[in-house]
């Protein structure tokens, strides 16, 4: 579905952070904020709840640890027992490095896939970029103006320019 986005471009992240606080104080519904680099305190200013991505990371890691350990246990005790260097079949110390590595692999790949899925990014997806300068040196505060009345729009525009935005644009994405 097409959205009509009304956004302001800021030159400085401190001005942007102040604008976000002001917008939240006056109960304006911020659609999203785009910055060229991670801005400290941004999610706090926007009032975003804590990411749950790390919980998924723990779960993937635990699955990876179990997968690796149980697979090696099955292989070396049931499926194809081989004696290596006079060690017992079930040689736990030898399994630990591989268990560790598969844990890291599962956690890392799982978190990347989860993150990309949440962000709707897949191979072939063309992300809608409001303004290419957002990837360089501009900070963007965007409002959803699809269903806004004319007064609401002028209020948003007024807010953006009064809070320090150097440019205000509207774009359909």
């Amino acid at each position: 579905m097409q959205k009509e986005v009304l956004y302001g471009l800021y030159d400085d992240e401190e001005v942007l952070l102040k604008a976000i606080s002001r917008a939240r104080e006056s109960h304006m519904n911020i659609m999203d904020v785009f910055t060229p680099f991670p801005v400290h305190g941004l999610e706090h200013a926007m009032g975003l709840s804590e990411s749950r991505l790390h919980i998924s990371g723990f779960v993937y890691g635990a699955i990876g640890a179990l997968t690796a350990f149980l697979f090696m246990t099955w292989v070396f005790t049931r499926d194809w027992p081989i004696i290596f260097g006079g060690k017992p079949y079930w040689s736990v110390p030898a399994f630990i490095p591989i268990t560790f590595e598969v844990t890291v692999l599962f956690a890392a790949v799982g978190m990347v896939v989860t993150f990309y899925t949440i962000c709707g990014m897949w191979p072939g997806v063309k992300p809608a970029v409001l303004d290419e300068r957002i990837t360089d040196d501009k900070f963007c505060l965007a409002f959803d103006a699809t269903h806004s009345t004319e007064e609401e729009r002028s209020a948003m525009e007024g807010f953006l320019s009064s809070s320090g935005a150097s440019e205000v644009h509207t774009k359909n994405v």
Partner: protein
Amino acid sequence: MNQFAFESKQKIFLLGAMGLGVVCMVLTFLVDDPLHTRFWSNFLHNSVFFTGIAFVSLFVLAAFTTAYSGWHTLVKRIWETYSLFLIPGLILMGVIILGIWGHFHHLYHWADPAAVAEDEILQGKSAFLNKNWYTIGTVVILGIWAYFAWRMHRISVQEDLQGTSDFSHHRRYRYWSAAFLPVGAFTSAALIWQWVMSIDAHWYSTLFAWYATASWFVAAMALTILTVIFLKALGYMEEVSTNHLHDLGKYAFAFSIFWTYLWFSQYMLIWYGNVGEETIYFRERLDHYPTMFYGNLILNFVAPFFILMRNDTKRKFGTMVLTSIILLLGHWWDFFLMIKPGVYHTAQEVLGHGAHGGGETGHDAAGHAASTFHAGFTMPGLLELGTFIGFLALFLYFVFNRLEKVSLIPPNDPYLAESKHHTVWPY
């Protein structure tokens, strides 16, 4: 409040705890075997543990200063006073040296001329493992560390009193820090070989020095966290926030994992290589010290790993106090396991129990005498705990006594403002 006042009731409490330690040491001495092995091994154990905490504090300061770290400035006075404990540490280790020369104890197999005479391996190592090198190594290296600690502390205090806008004190502090890094990094290995690894004189491991230093490191972080929380509870160091606590917790967490990595690397290579003279070290501990052996991993890896993994647990005072106590005792427990089995072996051999066969086999055969429970060796007993409390009280008394003489917050440190604004989460 930036000026710590060492109140008399704290002094009395700590002196009482020291008294408890002395009583426990006297009791240990009385109930001991004729060689007083338990007494001397407890003395060595605690001296090495607390001197190591002082060393790591100095190393941390040097590393952070060299790396242009700013966040630690609010807590750096704690490490500066910790590192001054290297001076009493020199005295404590001096007692061990006197014991070696006067044959008061038999902690070290290689210090016994009769054992060396009939032992080819000890003869081969005697170029390094002898009384002269032990004395020179300990006195010179510990002396250099103590000099660095004293020097850096003095520069820092001068900065408080006469700090100038050209940061000349900080620059000098930085030179001394950078100079200490290579010195500390290389010499700490030699001291650990002499103090701890040479107890099992037949055995060696190239990873051992790293592993023991990592153990000291976590213990130092745990004690730092406890001191910071204690001082905050008394109303000092208001500006030290949960953000600083979070970073200290990260160090405790990260170095717990580092310790486990080194512990496991050492264990697995020896297990996999399966060379008799190497595996005997772990065989001995697995057979006769299983609770200590697995408990070591639970206290120092499993507990901190799962407790400190989340962000918010590192920001809660209660959780951090609990975890720090676990880690401090856990690494004391780790050093117990490094020191006691070897000392027990040597003592059994000197006392003539199970030393039949002589030489190499005698040293191994002595291990089988330890198959039953031996108070103070198989597990730390109440006397060991009392001795630990005594040494801890001595350490804290010294630290608080020094802390009282300086400002808790270095007012002229160029990184003070950065430390005050330190924010890690939630940004």
